[in-house]
């Protein structure tokens, strides 16, 4: 098994505040790897470190076989970075962007020209190639960004929140391209705050929270780590709801709906035990439903337990509840 990214003990602090707190990462060649986490988790910093834009305070990494610190030029030859804000020149046309980047990748002028025309067609931009990027929609900009990344096939493609702000159709289309790249042998490192995106695309997922990887594995592994299934319990009155919160391990809760979600192994016996436990605690459940857990559940269980293990502030508790009720 070969790894395109092999990083260990990556640390970075900005102004004394740790952003990455000892991250280990191994990404198999040819796979799609998703780095999942909320804003401020350190995803972008990790990408910027691996793309040679930021020096880590500590830790070592190789990217496509090149040492990050000793051979940054070798790394740069092997990667392509598409940023959170599409890294294209607004004032130039799509064709000009592609040719400029082609020249910077040291393609001969004629090759840059031919390749640009081909990529515009591949990425469904042929009609707008001669318009300035300023006039492009969000989806068109991301497609141009991807087309630029494919001028010279990289060994590792960074996609930093590629679908943030895109409409569902553009998002689906972009996912399709990413799958094609991977099928073509390009290793993809994707950051996202959308659990669905990681679920849909990634072979492996790492969850980043406060600068640490709190869980890693395939989507299925992560989901089954919760204990198979999620039982949602609803309570008739607020007192029952509060007593339940105090007596069972809660993944998340909604005060308004008086619901509490609990992870179980999915067996009838486990559900029976749970209901018995609640009855003895003086919090009999009014309604029960059972669901396969989503990555949301995994993420919330991991982050919420962390929040509770510190002193829970009012705002943090509210945020978790809000997040749960949106779904």
């Amino acid at each position, binding site marked *: 098994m070969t790894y395109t990214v092999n990083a260990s003990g990556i640390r970075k602090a900005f102004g004394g505040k740790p952003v990455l707190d000892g991250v280990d990462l191994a990404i198999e060649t040819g796979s799609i790897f998703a780095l999942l986490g909320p804003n401020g988790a350190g995803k972008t910093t990790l990408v910027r470190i691996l793309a*040679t*834009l*930021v020096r880590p305070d500590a830790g070592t990494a190789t990217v496509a076989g090149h040492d990050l610190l000793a051979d940054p030029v070798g790394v740069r030859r092997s990667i392509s970075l598409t940023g*959170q804000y599409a*890294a294209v020149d607004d*004032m130039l046309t799509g064709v000009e962007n592609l040719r400029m980047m082609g020249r*910077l990748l040291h393609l001969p002028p004629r090759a840059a020209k031919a390749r640009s025309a081909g990529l515009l067609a591949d990425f469904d931009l042929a009609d707008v190639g001669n318009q300035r990027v300023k006039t492009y929609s969000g989806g068109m900009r991301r497609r141009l960004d991807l087309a630029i990344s494919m001028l010279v096939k990289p060994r590792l493609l960074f996609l930093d929140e590629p679908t943030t702000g895109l409409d569902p159709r553009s998002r689906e289309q972009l996912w399709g391209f990413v799958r094609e790249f991977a099928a073509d042998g390009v290793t993809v490192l994707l950051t996202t705050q959308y659990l669905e995106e990681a679920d849909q695309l990634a072979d492996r997922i790492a969850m980043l929270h406060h600068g640490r990887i709190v869980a890693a594995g395939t989507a299925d592994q992560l989901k089954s780590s919760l204990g198979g299934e999620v039982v949602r319990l609803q309570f008739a009155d607020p007192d029952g709801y509060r007593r339940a919160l105090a007596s069972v391990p809660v993944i998340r809760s909604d005060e308004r709906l008086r619901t509490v979600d609990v992870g179980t192994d999915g067996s009838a016996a486990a559900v029976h035990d749970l209901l018995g436990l609640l009855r003895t605690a003086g919090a009999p459940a009014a309604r029960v439903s059972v669901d396969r857990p989503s990555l949301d559940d995994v993420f919330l269980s991991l982050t919420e337990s962390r929040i509770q293990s510190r002193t829970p502030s009012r705002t943090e508790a509210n945020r978790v509840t809000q997040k749960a009720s949106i779904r």
Partner: protein
Amino acid sequence: MTTAYALSDTRVMIARCLRRSLRDPEAFFTALMLPVVLMLMFVYVFGGAMKSGGTYADYVVPGLIVLCAGFGAGTTAVAVAFDMSSGIVDRFRSMPIHGSSILAGHIAASLARNLLATALVIGAGLGVGWRPTGSPGAWAGAVAMVTAFILAMSWLAAAFGLLVRSPEAANAATFVLMFIPYLSTAFVPARTMPAVLRPVAANQPFTPVIETMRGLWMGHTSTGAAVGHEAWIAAAYCAVILVAAFAAASWLFRHRTAA
């Protein structure tokens, strides 16, 4: 990476910056109109009241060149700050290209924009009665002087743009650099100023630059000093500003983008 790649990267970056300059029609139009409008205003509106010895057009051309260069430097500071605040510089830096080519592109475009503005000032000046008496050699010297000055201002502007990061803040450079010429011998001789301002005007860096051009084109300076004397001071000022701004910009570029 070879020198050939470095040159090719720089050429691509220069083309990009020039293209961007041409594609911002408002800014471009303002930059072209400014020299002409200022020339008409200074010569026809203020000119009558100025006692500079000879026609005011003969006096004011070097001052307006410097004023327009200040405006041009502001444009450069904004362009650099804008680039740094957009995602594209990150992409450039993650590519196997020479980092220095990015700033070189901005500086070359700045030089081109400002030399065009200088040519417009000269053209407008000749149109309103400026009659320089300098020899071709003196012209070459004056053009070399203004080129060195623009180069120094361009690096200073780039360093400022890198320092402040936001295009709005970078615009402050325009204000400062367009204000300094008023406290020099650009528009009136230092001897006509109040005693407090006289030493400021006589010793600030813009004055020797202006006086060098004035001396070369008209045969005499407004300070009474010899052209050669002013030229040495001007060259020293430009060299110091250039070296300091270049060092600051290079340092900032490495560290700003690496944050």
